Each structure stands twice: as C-alpha cells, then as structure tokens.
C-alpha cells in the first residue's frame, strides 16, 4: 500500500487487515519500490500522486524489476475521471479505486479487481 497520505495508509491498512490480509505500507514511490522488492507482495495498491514520482513511473519501474514484473497493481486516485484516468485504466493495472472510498468496501473492491489471481485469503 503506497500512499503519501498517512490517513489513507491508516484506513487502508485497517480495512485490509480486517479482511485478513497482511499489509505493508510506504509513503513514497522509492520507499514503495524498496518494500516491494523486499516483501514480494501479492498485490500493490498504488497512489497516483506521490511526492517523489508519479504512480505511473513507479509502475514502470516495477515492471522492469525481475521479481515484480507480474505483481498485480491497483491504482488509488482522487481523479478517477478524465484523460489521465483513462490512460491509467489502459496501463498495466487491474483497476482503479477512486478516493474517497468506503473503508468497509475497500477489501472487497480490491479482491474483486484482483480476481482469481489476487492472492491473500479472507480471514
């Protein structure tokens, strides 16, 4: 879960852990990449607007990293409409979760976007 906003990290962690997932968080693109390389997550939730680089850039770098080529990614964005959002949808992601979101529905939404290949079990 990569988002520079501590409140969003907090609520996402809460919602996903409640659904039985293990959650690691990062506050920037660089930190997110580093954690992803180390933790090898089953999926990555990625904010589009990060302080150091864009979510798209983080995604590109992930894809260049041997271990992260196929990790499913879901974007989080405050602007789920417009050209950029369309471009996001066409990129190599499973989907978009718009902000604000309902914490009670976050886990279900993410699981749905990840589909069968989305690892992690409901607890």
């Amino acid at each position, binding site marked *: 879960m990569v988002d*520079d*906003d*501590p*409140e*969003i990290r*907090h*609520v996402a962690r*809460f919602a996903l852990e409640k659904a039985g997932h293990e959650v690691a968080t990062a506050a920037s693109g660089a930190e997110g990449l580093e954690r992803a390389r180390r933790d090898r997550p089953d999926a990555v939730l990625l904010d589009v*607007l990060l302080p150091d680089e864009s979510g798209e850039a983080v995604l590109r770098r992930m894809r260049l990293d041997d271990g992260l080529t196929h990790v499913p990614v879901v974007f*989080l964005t*405050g602007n789920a409409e417009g050209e950029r959002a369309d471009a996001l949808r066409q990129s190599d992601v499973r989907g978009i979760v718009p*902000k*604000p*979101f*309902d*914490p*009670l529905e976050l886990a279900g939404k993410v699981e749905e976007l990840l589909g069968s290949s989305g690892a992690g079990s409901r607890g």
Partner: protein
Amino acid sequence: MEELKSWYREQLEARIDALEAAAEALLVEDRGEARGTIRRVAHSLRGSGGTYGFPRITEAAAEVEEASDSELPVKLEGLLDVLREVAGRSEADRVGLLVIDDDDEIARILEWHLGNDNREIHHARTAEEAERILAVEEVDLVVLDLVLPDTDGRNLLMRLRERPSTAALPVIVLTVKSSSLAKSECFALGADEFFEKPFDPEAFATAVASKLQRYRESAQESRQDPLTELPNRAAFHESFRLAQAFARRQEQALSIGFLDLDRFKQVNDAHGHAMGDEVLRRAATTIEDALRGSDLVARWGGEEFVVLFPDTDSEGALRALDKARRRFRQEQFVAEGETFQLSFSAGVAPVLPEDEADEAVARADYYLYLAKSTGRDRVVSDSADVPRPKRRVLIGEDDDLVATLIRHRLSQEGLEVVHCSDGEAVLDEVGSNGDGSEFSLVILDVLLPDMDGFEVLNRMRQQRETSSIPVIVLTVRGSEEDVVRGLSLGADDYMVKPFSPTELLARVHRLLKKS
C-alpha cells in the same frame, strides 16, 4: 468505524494548524508557497475526508483545490470551518469542567467518569487556585468540595453567585459533610446539586450531563458575549434584521464593518490566553467608545467584531471605523513587564435591502481581506478613497409606486434622485440649471399626463444643453412601436414594465459609465 473516525479527528488537528499557518502566510510572505501548501493539504483531505465518513470535508477540500488564487482565501475559510467543526474544535462544542477538591484521588475518579473528547477537566486544590482558573479558562460547570485548605467551599460558592460572569454557572457540591443543614445551606446559596461522598459515579455523571446541557441551552438563548459583554452573533443577526427594515422604511443608507485584530494569535502564544482575553475586552471597549451610540458593535467570534452603522454610507462608516482603529493602536498592553501595542484591520461595505446578515458580513469580509493583504492596520471600503460627487438622476413617471421603487434602488447606489410626475415638470427640471448638465441620467415613462414622454424626449434632444443627457424610456409590455419610436427620437436605452431592479441597475450603471 467510530475508532477510525476519532483517530482521524485527532489527525485533523495537525492539518488545521498547517492550513491556519498557510492562511497567515498567504497574507504576507511567499504566497506561491502558501498556495502550494494549501492545495496540497486540500488534495489530501479531499481523498481522506469522505473515506473516513466526512463527505463535507471532501466537498470543501475539492472547492479549495480547484479555487482560483483570488477565491482561495474564502474557500479556505470554508474548509477550515468544516475541519474545526469535525475536529470538535469549534468553541460551541468544547466544554470546560472545574473540579475544586484538595483530594487528588477524587479528582482522578471524576476525571475518569466525566472526561470525554469534548470535555476539558481542570483541577483546583484550593479556592484561590479555582479563582485563577475561572479567570482564564472557559468553565461550564463546577464541582465543589466544601472542605478546602484555604476556605469553606460555601464562601467560594457565595462569591461565584455574586459575580455576574459566574452567577449562572452550574455548581455541583460534592462533600463528606453530611449534616442536612449544610445541604440546605448550599441550596440556599445557589448550588444546583448536592452529592455526598462516597458517591455513585454514574448518577453523578448523569447529573453533570444534564446540568451542562441546561447551561448550554440557556447560554445559546443569551444574547451577550460573556467575555466582552458585547452582543453576540445571535444578537447581531436579530439587530441586523431590525436595522435593515428600519433603513428600508426610512430610505436610509446602512453600512457594515467587519474587523479582525492583527496578529492576535501571537498575543495568545506569547502571553497566554488571559492576556488574549484582556486584549479582546479592551478592543471591545475602545471600538465602542470611538463610535456613535447608534452604531452597533457585536462580537462575531474569536478576534472578529462586526459593526452596523445606521444612516451612514460606507464612506462615513469608513471614517468612523478608522477613528476607532487609530484609538486602538494607541492602547498600551503590559504583559510580564513588556509593553506592546496592537492594531486591527477592517472592511466596510454597504448593506443592501435584500441582504442576509451573512451576505453583508461576507461583503465586508472581502474588504477586510484586502485590508489584511495590503499590510494590515487599515480600513478598506468599497468606496474610493476620494469621495466622488453625487450623480443625479431624474425620473419622469406618473406612477408613484414605480417612481418610489426606482428612487429607492438608485439611492442605495449612492445616486441622488429627483422625481417629476409630468412632462412639463421634467423639462423644467432638466433645463432649470441653464446648462442642464447637472443630471447624469433621465428615466422617462412614455405615458405622462399633459406632455407624453416622446414629446419630452424630442424637446430635450433639440435643446443643446439637454441633448446629450442619457435617457432610458419606460414602456409597457406589448408596445414595441413605442420602443422603436423612443430609440429613433434619441433614447439611449429602454425598459419594459414590469422590470426587475437588477435589470434597471445594470442599465443605469452602463449608461452612467458612458457619460
């Protein structure tokens, strides 16, 4: 979800601080940087507010994020209001309790049972300490032990009841003394409840809650700000309606001033809230003393005050408020042996007949913003610094009601209006000054007794002195021919009755700008 919400509320404190600091910086320092900070924080709140179940935060934050630079300050205030409310920082929601008991254990038990997010519990071990706290803190309820190291609690109770600021404050006596005499004595002295130790904490907490509620309800009904003893916001709203109705009936101007003490937060930070309160009280007195008895000064909230100036245009209000400003900056404040002076900034605007109080305040607040952003310690109004000579408008209209409506609306715009009911009188009036140039505009009904509007217009255009005065002709619906005839005779514009005052104003302003 409730835990999440209360966690989020706590996080909001830091966001509010950041936005408040940026709002200050927006007025003076690097505005680009301040705007960047504000939009960044707003963007973040836009995403998190709704997520935590506060959609109003998301809405208000979106408005800030998308605001133009000039709208930014106003939108930011809106967002801050929402944030303060959600964070429970709004003054109305905060409750102060004062426990006066030399037994620390009792204080701890009470803190446990009475404390919650919105309640701040102060603890005094002596009557003297209690007095100190009461002077400084907002206290809404007192828990009083009768046995205190420095005095009998009943003496303190008596003193509280004698002082106007604490006379209505709920006092719950909690004591080991169990003679029935003490109990009836306490009630006679004005105690609201009497509990004996050992006590049932739950029953006690219930009593506290009900007393607090009653006290707050009565405080809301009250119309006076207890600190400055000025009318409060609710009282202002009421006075506003009355003043507005009066001004309308008397066709008088009414102006409003909105003012804010400069750098007040620094006083609180440097010298404490007691000094801050002292500053507010002296500001209230100074401003009131400097203005006329008929001007109404009220405390709007925080360090903001609002003033109504009956029968005064905004130039007059500006002069009056500027006098108050000069007086206030002469005031000397002393804290810890250090002397300092303060100033305020203010905005002045006219009150329009259809204004709600908050609209009028918002208009004055805009000029206050200009005053702040151009260096503070000044009063800014909608009128130019140099008073313009009054422009005169002549109305030729035999329907008195229509004439009165027009006259009223135009005089609010600072125009002088002369009314004639027939055509001859109009011609006399425009020609009376020899050169006729003293009228900036003529509004002419085409249907007038004796000489109709067309004839008046025709003659006006043939006289050199009156040929260039702009004329608006008034016709009734369905008489397009009249419009054509009027325009061909040299009318500059026309209006079809019935017309809206806004339309009239727009046309008048357009023609006056040309002339």
